């Protein structure tokens, strides 16, 4: 077997594992070992949720099912803080977000421990982080098949312009 052939086999295998990981559909969620010793380097479980399309998509659906939209809207915030920005009151790492979801936070964030499974909490956390573009953009679909509740940017921006300069030609036509 030529070495070139071997190299290409290895490359193919690498490609395969990379492709498989992001595309895996494990409906049980990834196993969540208790080992927390490696926290400094980032939890290895991050990748198993954050970079896996299926888990993100499940998180997206849970976000609606668990009525997260009630307070956080579709990331823009409402009663609860916005999730689309880069600011995290309680830390923005996966473990922090999971902890927030499971244990709740003061000022209204309820604890979901015992009300959703830990896997679901990780799915949700992965989705929540994706709202602020934490993981790669092409892992989650571009939009949900739902109503977008945020105000379309074009309308609000343009209304402002119109308000300030009422003498625009198209207003005369109206």
């Amino acid at each position, binding site marked *: 077997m030529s070495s070139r052939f071997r190299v290409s086999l290895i490359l193919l295998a690498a490609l395969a594992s990379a492709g498989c990981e992001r595309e895996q559909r494990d409906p049980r969620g990834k196993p969540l070992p208790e080992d927390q010793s490696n926290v400094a380097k980032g939890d290895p479980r991050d990748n198993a949720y954050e970079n896996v399309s299926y888990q993100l998509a499940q998180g997206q*659906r849970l976000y609606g099912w668990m009525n997260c939209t009630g307070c956080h809207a579709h990331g823009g915030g409402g009663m609860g803080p916005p999730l689309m920005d880069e600011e995290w009151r309680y830390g923005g790492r996966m473990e922090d977000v999971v902890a927030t979801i499971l244990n709740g936070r003061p000022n209204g964030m309820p604890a979901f421990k015992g009300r959703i499974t830990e*896997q679901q909490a990780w799915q949700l956390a992965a989705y929540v982080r994706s709202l602020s573009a934490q993981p790669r953009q092409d892992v989650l679909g571009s939009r949900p098949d739902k109503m977008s509740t945020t105000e379309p940017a074009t309308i609000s921006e343009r209304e402002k312009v119109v308000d300030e300069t009422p003498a625009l030609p198209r207003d005369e036509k109206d």
Partner: protein
Amino acid sequence: MRRALPLLLPLAGCDTVQSMTGGDGRQGALFNDLFVIFAIVTLVMLALVLTGLIASIFRRHPAKSSVPGENDEARDAPFRPLLIGWVALIATGLLFLTTATYLTDRAMQARAPANRLLEIEITANQWWWDIRYKSSKPWQTIRTANEIHLPVGIPARITLKSNDVIHSFWVPNLAGKQDLIPGRRTDTVLEPKRIGVYRSQCAEFCGAQHAHMALDVTVESWADFNAWRVRQLTPAPAPATPLALAGYNYVTTRECASCHAIAGTPASAQVAPDLTHLASRRSIAAGTFPMTRGHLYAWIADPQGAKPGNNMPVVGLEPNELHSVIAYLETLK
């Protein structure tokens, strides 16, 4: 004639709970009649073609010596009247079938004058059916899942919606399909003619568990139906045994209650099937298993093993929790 269809089906020994041959609804019976008409016409046409084919193969053909292609066009001429006749025959057959189609379709559309009309709203989800019996009085609205009961002889207008992807509502014994399309509202009418239990299955590919998205249909007498309706309107009973009480506490406060609702308890989420009368249903998990204690155990303990890819998570119940949850669920008659 309604019974003629099974005769054409040598392999269909008897009508089953999910078969077009049943003809147990008004539209289903009309379908059977039309199917028989089509079957006869098409079989006659097939027989004609095969006769021609076999005759052409086995007829004594002229000797092999003459030059190929000689005077072909001139030799076409005698076949012209035959071709014209053949086209006329096909056209007549099609005209007949189109007329039969039109008349059947009109008959299916026709609303029988009914003094009672049942209004049901079905919302499809990946991979279960959310059922509401509508009523002008809100306290008479029934909410259930994965089963419908219909009084025999009374038309039921069914409004169809979808929460996620396209599904298709189909009770083969009673009537044809109607898709459930997100963003649209469609409807269909079922008019069951005969008492019995039937099975409906989603007929539009809808994802991982399309195969396990069934709906139990029970057609019963008006009295039975009314009894069922009254039962459905009652909230869940309070748990009677300590074990069931433990189960009640778990189900209504923990993971289960985040998605399921049980009328008369704090559990009121709308994400997953209503469990109020779970134990009275024929099957579990949208027709995936028959309702038995063993299947209930298997399902609650590992929903992903039983129906991979569905949206119920593996909660990881401890054995005692599992026993108590099952004990409580079994009280939900």
